[in-house]
């Protein structure tokens, strides 16, 4: 008797799943609708929007004011990832703490790692700080494949946009001329803007700065800044008293006055360092959307450079 009861229940279960299967036949005829693009970060979203124009819908998982290392793998993201045609990631293990389970659970074959709808933007970019020799976590939360904050160099922005253009053209060959034209326009505008930014930063070239996290090597290289120290003793390790004392001594010795902090870090230690060195803390945002007015990749540099110049001028 028990036997039959179990079988009835198992049959019910099986029937339930067949019903689910039947309900879930995807709607047909969506072939030429907009490409649905999900990106890990807002910067990639902005670049994808530049290239994709009105042929794509783009949304980022992380917000611009959020630490991209620590995003929560919320189920609400799954609903968006499930519908995505293309997923663009920063790579270099930046998202390793949250993206892999989202990709697996999305049940979307198109965006699985290695599938045509999975694009790792780091493949196109110039990567700095790739560790040499032995890599251990005595160095903190090191990224063995290099520094993942590479989008903060406009040249890398251009490279990534080119990579996105190729991917979009591959996915929608009919629109490839449109994407090429969008990219060309973007390239032209970015080159013009970059000339302006470089000119703005020219008089500050070679200036020494301290940053909270190692988010700025590409930015510093492009604009000729010299990062001499970090508030974090090691990447991902919170400030320690001993390191802070050493940092203050180093800043005094080298006459460094500027401490750049990302919007998601606590300002207590940077402020205390600034007080003791006569310096200034400046909160720069590493990502689009870090402040309300930073709505695209251009405004990101506009904002950061304006704030940086202002800060350089006041400490001088």
């Amino acid at each position, binding site marked *: 008797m*028990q036997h039959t009861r*179990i079988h009835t*229940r*198992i*049959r019910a*279960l*099986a*029937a*339930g*799943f*067949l019903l*689910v*299967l039947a*309900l*879930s036949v995807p709607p047909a005829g969506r072939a030429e609708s907009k490409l649905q693009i999900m990106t890990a970060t807002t910067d990639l979203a902005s670049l994808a929007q530049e290239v994709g124009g009105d042929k794509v819908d783009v949304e980022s998982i992380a*917000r611009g*004011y959020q*630490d991209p290392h*620590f995003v*929560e793998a*919320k*189920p*609400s993201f*799954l609903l968006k990832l499930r519908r995505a045609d293309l997923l663009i990631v920063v790579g*270099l*293990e930046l998202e*390793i*703490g949250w*993206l892999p*389970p989202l990709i*697996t*659970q999305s*049940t979307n*074959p198109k965006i*699985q*790692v*290695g*599938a045509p709808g999975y694009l*790792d933007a*780091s*493949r*196109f970019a*110039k*990567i*700095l700080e*790739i560790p*040499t*020799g*032995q*890599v251990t976590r005595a160095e903190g939360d090191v990224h*063995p*494949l*290099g520094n993942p904050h590479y989008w903060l160099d406009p040249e890398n922005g*251009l*490279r990534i946009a080119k*990579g996105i253009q190729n991917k979009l053209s591959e996915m929608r060959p009919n629109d490839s001329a449109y994407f090429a034209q969008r990219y060309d326009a973007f390239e032209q505008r970015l080159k013009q803007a970059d000339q302006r930014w470089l000119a703005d930063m020219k008089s500050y070239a070679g200036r020494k700065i301290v940053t909270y996290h190692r988010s700025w090597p590409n930015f510093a290289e492009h604009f000729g800044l010299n990062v001499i120290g970090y508030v974090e003793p090691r990447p991902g390790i*919170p400030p320690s008293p001993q390191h802070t004392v050493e940092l203050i001594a180093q800043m005094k010795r080298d006459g460094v006055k500027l401490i750049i902090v990302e*919007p*998601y870090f*606590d300002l207590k230690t940077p402020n205390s360092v600034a007080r003791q060195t006569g310096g200034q803390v400046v909160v720069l945002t590493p990502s689009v959307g870090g402040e309300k007015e930073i709505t695209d990749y251009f405004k990101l540099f506009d904002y950061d450079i304006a704030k940086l110049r202002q800060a350089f001028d006041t400490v001088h």
Partner: protein
Amino acid sequence: MKRIAVLSAVIFFSAAASAQQAPPHESKKDGPATQYSVAASEEARMKTLEDQVRALAEQVTLLRGELEAMRDARSVEPRSEEPILLTASHVTPGILAPSAPAAVPASPEPTPPPQATQTQIFGGASSNAKLLNPDISLIGDFIGAAGRNDVSPSPSLELHESEVGLQAIIDPYARADAFISFGETGVNVEEAYVTFTSLPAGLLLRVGKMRAEFGKVNTIHNHALSFIDRPLVTNNLVGGEDGIDDAGFSLSRFLPAPKDWFFQGTAQVFRGDSDDLFLATRRQDLSVVGHLRAYRDLGESTNLDLGVSYARGHNNAGVGTGFDPSRFLTNLYSADATLRWKPLRRAIYHSFLFRNEFFWSARDRVSPAASFQTQHAFGLYSDAEYRANRRWTIGGRFDRSGHAANANLTDTGFSAILTYWPSEFSQIRGQYRFGHLADPVTTNYSNANEFLFQFLFVMGAHGAHPF
């Protein structure tokens, strides 16, 4: 049974079909094979060949120059589109194919800056195989206890568990995760399953041994818990530390939901052996687990996670009695609710979690009067934790649980927990635990006052944080 066969046939055939639809990935790196047949021995021909070689060498130099110029101009061309199967495989083709001739660089990528060179890889050709190794991690879990507990004492000091994790993408259609736990009493495959990620109709299929999707705490590994021990209710009603952890199939799918809600259904079929909770004496004594999850964002920082679960399997209460052992079942029901708060701008400093789980157990047994009887029991735990800053988390837990085998006994307890994180990869935790516990044999109650402490350390691959 027939229907199950039909269902699995449908799933597997459609999986196979979708696998076949996917375009095969082709390697595009076939170098131009230059084959010269130098069979003839005439001098003239040798000379012609020499000339040709010389001309080729010149061309190579020319091409090299051009390439250098292109690199200087930092021209951006996407690399060949071969799929990258590992997330951790950003390496230049030069490293992937060290034997490739230097004059045929596959990548027009800009040269790396002088201060940064590639990750060191030893041993030439054989080292390439390492790139395909799974992500390996080991989590050590050291626990100590002091104080008094007469009912369920734990050792003063123990390396409670060393959990080795192996995780990899298997092929374009599946990934696999294995967690092998080395404990004081031996080795246990805690979980090892393959997940098919490319099934049609949004289905996610897992096959292997796994922690059942029964409530929340049952799915969480020891090292990811917010406390050192497991709640009393886990020990009393849901099979102890390992909980429902069995070999079988798991099929889940997102379900249609109202706007802003996320619904997910999971159905699992297991062999029916989970510690002393379920025991299958016959092949058809399978256990089943069903789980429904509802999730909603209440804003970008706050969210609500709800679930109901059901589990059913045979138990061992009838073994050795005059009754037919296959008649004895355990039915378990649970409901869970979690409220999370984590402000995005200060995510690494502050967060709050409040979780409640309720369990009902209906277990068939032979009553003291030697008749067939279903014993009911209820248990719950309530957990709150607050991350005060980047390094410190405080928490508390309330426990109350009946005994699955004796309805007259109820354990009560509470804990206060303090956690310190030197970094993301280690954790030091202290827990004060009070319990008013019943001895299942003597049915006497006694108070337990204990202090537990724990050191956790993580080696190797950076696993994803559980949500």
